[in-house]
């Protein structure tokens, strides 16, 4: 019996940490197939591509742990980026433009980021209110929000790319802290990402708030009985989702020096990246289990695969296919094991043992 439990534990522990196995396999394969993979410039390029999806998937992971979905994430990323760029242009002009010097720049960027974050948090709060308080299904709420926000983004940007003329900030945030090989990927933007991931992972696994969120996602009824304010937890998870999506969009736009209203429409949809990495990273689809760090590593895994595919001369098409197949396989595996589990609900172990003995006896009998 104990042995059995140990085996189950090992299996579930292995499954919980599957992302590290995936990552190791991908690294090993790429190390052989693509020697330049571990070169310093490639590592830097790889890290850069991870930044947007990692930040955006933090909030998505939170929402999913709480037992909901946030399909509006793609629109919120776009909203964060166009608002940040658009507002910077306005504030910068307001502060006197180039004549305003560094002060104008800093002030304009700060205000622009505040606006972008405010938009994200506002959208998240509205989502959260409708899901937690009004009790509309999160799928419906966020699908509506997706349409409305993407309409807002197009209206705000007039359907055009918004670019800024100042390269000051991008020079700062994407400049390597130490220009040495292999650590040159450490830029201020990278540090911001690491810090945000660390903070949100800390909240999740080190504070009571995080534990309560897990409980809400895992079994809402028993969480409620334990005196946990389930509505507040769900509400805040959506707010966090809006926050991280907006900030990731804003940071991405800054490094591109431009914001487009339809990022990912012709490439890889942010929703796909985020959904795939959250689920492949081990967040349970029904909620109650998951980790921001594992999601981040899942993003790294997927981006590494992409990186390898690009090195073999393949484009977005092969990338989308690989990520889709990986996501499909993981979803299928998870559901299949849940299905198997559900069949065994309520069975009596004593009877199983007896049946096993009987079968052994039968096969021994037929053998002689």
């Amino acid at each position: 019996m104990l042995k059995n439990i140990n085996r189950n534990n090992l299996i579930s522990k292995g499954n919980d940490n599957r992302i590290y196995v995936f990552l190791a396999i991908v690294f090993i394969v790429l190390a052989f197939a693509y020697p330049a993979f571990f070169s310093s410039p490639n590592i830097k390029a790889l890290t850069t591509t991870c930044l947007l999806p990692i930040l955006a998937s933090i909030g998505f992971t939170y929402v999913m742990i709480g037992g909901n979905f946030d399909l509006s994430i793609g629109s919120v990323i776009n909203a964060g980026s166009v608002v940040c760029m658009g507002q910077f242009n306005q504030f910068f002009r307001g502060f006197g433009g180039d004549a305003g010097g560094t002060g104008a720049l800093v002030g304009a960027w700060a205000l622009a980021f505040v606006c972008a974050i405010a938009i994200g948090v506002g959208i998240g709060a509205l989502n959260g209110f409708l899901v937690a308080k009004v009790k509309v299904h999160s799928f419906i709420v966020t699908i509506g929000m997706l349409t409305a926000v993407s309409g807002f983004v197009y209206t705000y940007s007039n359907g055009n790319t918004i670019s800024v003329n100042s390269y000051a900030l991008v020079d700062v945030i994407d400049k390597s802290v130490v220009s040495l090989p292999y650590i040159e990927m450490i830029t201020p933007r990278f540090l911001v990402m690491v810090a945000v991931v660390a903070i949100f992972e800390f909240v999740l696994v080190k504070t009571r708030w995080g534990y309560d969120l897990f409980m809400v996602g895992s079994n809402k009824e028993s969480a409620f009985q334990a005196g946990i304010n389930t509505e507040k937890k769900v509400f805040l998870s959506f707010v966090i989702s809006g926050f991280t999506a907006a900030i990731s969009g804003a940071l991405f736009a800054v490094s591109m020096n431009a914001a487009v209203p339809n990022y990912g429409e012709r490439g890889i949809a942010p929703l796909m990246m985020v959904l795939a990495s959250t689920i492949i990273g081990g967040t349970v689809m029904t909620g109650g289990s998951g980790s921001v760090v594992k999601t981040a590593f899942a993003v790294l895994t997927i981006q590494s695969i992409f990186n390898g595919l690009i090195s073999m001369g393949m484009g977005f098409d092969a990338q989308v296919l690989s990520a889709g197949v990986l996501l499909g396989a993981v979803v299928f595996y998870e559901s299949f094991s849940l299905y198997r589990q559900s069949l065994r609900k309520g069975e009596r172990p004593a009877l199983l043992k007896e049946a096993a003995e009987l079968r052994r006896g039968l096969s021994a009998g037929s053998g002689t």
Partner: protein
Amino acid sequence: MSDTVTELGRVVLEMRGVSKQFPGTLAVDNVNFQVKAGEVHALMGENGAGKSTLMKMLAGLFSDYTGEILIDGEPVKLTSPMLAKQAGVAMIYQELSIAYNRSVQENVFAGQIPTRGKVIDKRALRDMTVDVLRHVKLDGKVDPATPMKNISQHESQLIEIAKALKDNPKILVMDEPTSALSTEEVETMFALMREVKSKGYAIVYISHHLQEVFDIADRVTVLRDGKLIDTCDVKDVSKEDLVEMMVGQKMSDFYKRTDKSVGDVVLEVEGLTHYGFVHNVSFQLNKGEILGLAGLAGAGRSELGRVIGGIDRMDAGVCRIGGTALKTKDMCNMVRHGVAYLTENRKTEGLNLRLTARENIFSAIIPKLSKGPVYFPRSGEAALDGLYESLNIVPRDKNLTASNFSGGNQQKVLLAKWMATKPKVLILDEPTRGVDVGAKKLIHETIERLASEGISVLLISSDLPEIVSLSDRIIVMMQGHLIGEMHKEDGFDESKVLLAANGERSVFSVAY
């Protein structure tokens, strides 16, 4: 947690003249109930005797009971689960509220995770959990960080008890805690209960297992029809006394079944096995016969019914209808061959509460009411009228949503749904659970009439008078096995059936 909660032998809980009225019935009728510290107090009675209602009252689930409840001599009003918890009542239900994704420690301390400053104190959490698990002797056996999904059912139950003990309750209520456990596991559970009571906790133990009551309980209180029959020391009574107290002397004559001859074999089950649930069951069901299937909770009766009905898979064995072996695990096929299984879970598996009565009754015969792919509900209207008439479903509105019917009429609608399929074999799983007296009588009459029309009925029921008065023959299951058969000509009554379900072999006509 202190070692001795209350001085042993002191009255911890006293319920004085408590009553609870449900529409149509007085579920608990002026009951006096006392529990002392340091005792295991068994609460017995047939289904519907009022045990659960009494305990729900204690758990604070009703706000409109009458009478007085005193805990430790203090009068308390238990009108909400929160108040009951604060007053020191801990309930351990069979259906556990477990967050399967989370670890043992998180489940035990849900909402009360210890922190140091703002940060979770993982070591404290672990130590506290080990402390709590020590009460149920699971410290060292179960790692507090194990996810609940990897914990066996038996251990989950123990953990649930540990969780309840953590809040330092005065009274622990356990509702059929052993129904899904193996013999050794029951022993562990009893050892634990003995230890817990020695610390001064009062345990209320609800069970149908007579032997277990004699093994573990100090005193026993028997309820019948909502009334208190007696409270006595277990050592002063015998099994037969208890059975008599539970069953009473009443004659179940108001639906006395007229004896009649039965025909050929219709359903033949041979070596039916569903691993882990039902094991090597063989029996025959004759035309026009009502075959009772008795057993305690967790004996595998419903599971057997579900396998024959085609809902759960059959791992081994044969199931023949009229001589032809059928492919089970395809309910559609079974229904077509005339097997109908009426579920015990009316509200979740039986009726579609949001659909109308008509839609519900037709739901199993949609293909029969169709010509090719096109559905003609009108063609079933005459049959529907007949069913409404014969079952006296009230109100007559066929477009009324099922949820708007009373419990009894919902059950009639469910019965009508399966009668509409014109079955040869009708498996009825608790056909009168939670229905009023009038509906019960009508359902019983209907079952009899169906049998006299040549339908074979497999009647699964925990209602002893029902199974005794309706059945031509009774087969008994225990722990997934068929253990014996009782024939009408050898005479069976409620006490004998109850003893048989508890594994008493002497009462069988044929013991396996």
